[in-house]
């Protein structure tokens, strides 16, 4: 069907205008960016829903996995970075494994999570985002991660303790900690890695510091 032909049919013309509005002035810039950075073949998605059907947590997501791919095609960057989907995703790789077109859905969602972490957009699932951040802080301190230190440091992050007291999660967490401690499963301090200089260098490299 030629463009001319499309323009002559009012309903299709409207459809075309709407699509143009959806994709916006940015064209396929965002799609190309994501495809380039992740090497995922996002254009190949034909919306078969297999990713969403395989996903164990799709009912908790505001943008379902197949929609994530569609949103990227549309260039809806902000909606994706503001979504809970990117934080709820477990990286269990079901979607990637079952995609008939080898669109790397889990890796793409993970890449969006990376982008959100380096953007000014506040994460929709604050506790989950802070947990990842605290984990990397623990790693920077000791080179290894210790559960007790990790949970303690997470609770000291702004707003976390208040939220946990409000929901009553704190009492439960303390009871669990005590139970684990009695069972001998909790070690109070991590074993420290000796090569901390090498590991901290990776962190500096990540921030773009050269030395």
């Amino acid at each position, binding site marked *: 069907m030629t463009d001319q032909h499309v323009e002559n049919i009012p309903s299709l013309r409207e459809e075309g205008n709407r699509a143009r509005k959806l994709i916006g002035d940015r064209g396929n810039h965002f799609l190309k960016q994501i495809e380039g950075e992740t090497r995922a073949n996002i254009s190949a998605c034909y919306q078969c829903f297999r990713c969403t059907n395989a996903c164990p947590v799709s009912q908790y997501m505001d943008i379902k996995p197949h929609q994530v791919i569609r949103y990227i095609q549309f260039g809806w960057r902000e909606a994706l970075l503001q979504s809970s989907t990117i934080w709820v995703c477990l990286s*269990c790789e079901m979607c990637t*494994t079952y995609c008939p077109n080898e669109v790397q859905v889990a890796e793409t969602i993970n890449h969006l999570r990376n982008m959100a972490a380096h953007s000014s957009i506040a994460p929709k699932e604050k506790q989950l985002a802070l*947990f*990842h951040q605290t984990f990397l802080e623990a790693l920077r301190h000791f080179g290894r*991660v210790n559960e007790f230190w990790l949970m303690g440091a*997470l609770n000291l992050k702004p707003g976390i303790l208040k939220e946990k007291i409000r929901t009553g999660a704190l009492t439960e967490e303390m009871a*669990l900690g005590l139970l684990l401690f009695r069972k001998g499963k909790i070690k109070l301090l991590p074993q420290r890695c000796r090569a901390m200089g090498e590991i901290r260098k990776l962190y500096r*490299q990540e921030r773009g510091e050269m030395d």
Partner: protein
Amino acid sequence: MELAFYPGCSLEGMAIDYSRSITAVFRDLDIELEEIEDWSCCGATAAHSLSESMAVTLPARNLAQAEKMGLDIVSPCPNCYNRLRASQIMIQKKIIDVPWEVTGKNQVHEMTRFLAAPDMLVRIADRVRKPLAGLKVVCYYGCQMVRPPRITGYTDYENPRTLDSIMTAVGATAMDWSYKTTCCGASIGIGRRDIQEFLTARLLDKARQADAEAVVTSCPLCHANLDLLQRKETQSTIPVFYFTELLRLTFDPGNASSKWFRMHITDPVPLLMKKELLR
């Protein structure tokens, strides 16, 4: 035989029981495990969530350390295995630069697959002194050990058989079930308890429906999730074992006592007593 052992952070903390049983089992099998010199964390989920490049560089240091030792690596934790393999592939393809001397030529073994090789199964069966006769288990693999197949190298990622064949070799009955590789929720319970409980409770329900008396796993995080969820349950609990704990029970029944299992939240002792596997 000698292997470089990469324990991972969990095995120093919550999974200390797993760590102890691994040491004992490998000693019994005459395989020497040499802990990787001054190993560091692989970054786990947090690293790849926030920084894709650090998810490759962090495990690379351990690959470099193992290459210095000149040994192949064995990893008991599926997540560590997955991260080490992902890093190894990136290094082999020269996609990313790391500040260490590393080629990625030393093999990374996933522990259950290493022990489920035909010659290893014979070695395990030879060591059995008291088979787990009449014990019905379901084997739970989780996500990271099998997916994505292009990293883990599993061709039977929908129905992995490694743990099943090990359990069969020591006389247990491995029940068939459809939830072998369904996610347990990993660390999502930290921020979203509702999701965690939904996923883990479903696994336990399905294990009961499959007529299993125990769940066998090799992942420290899966074990913690499945075990801890049952702390408030009063009626029918289902014990969760690391597969090495059960191997140890069959290899050395003389020294078996209920003390071994005191670290579990869901007490497995009554079940083992009932099966006369423990005195």
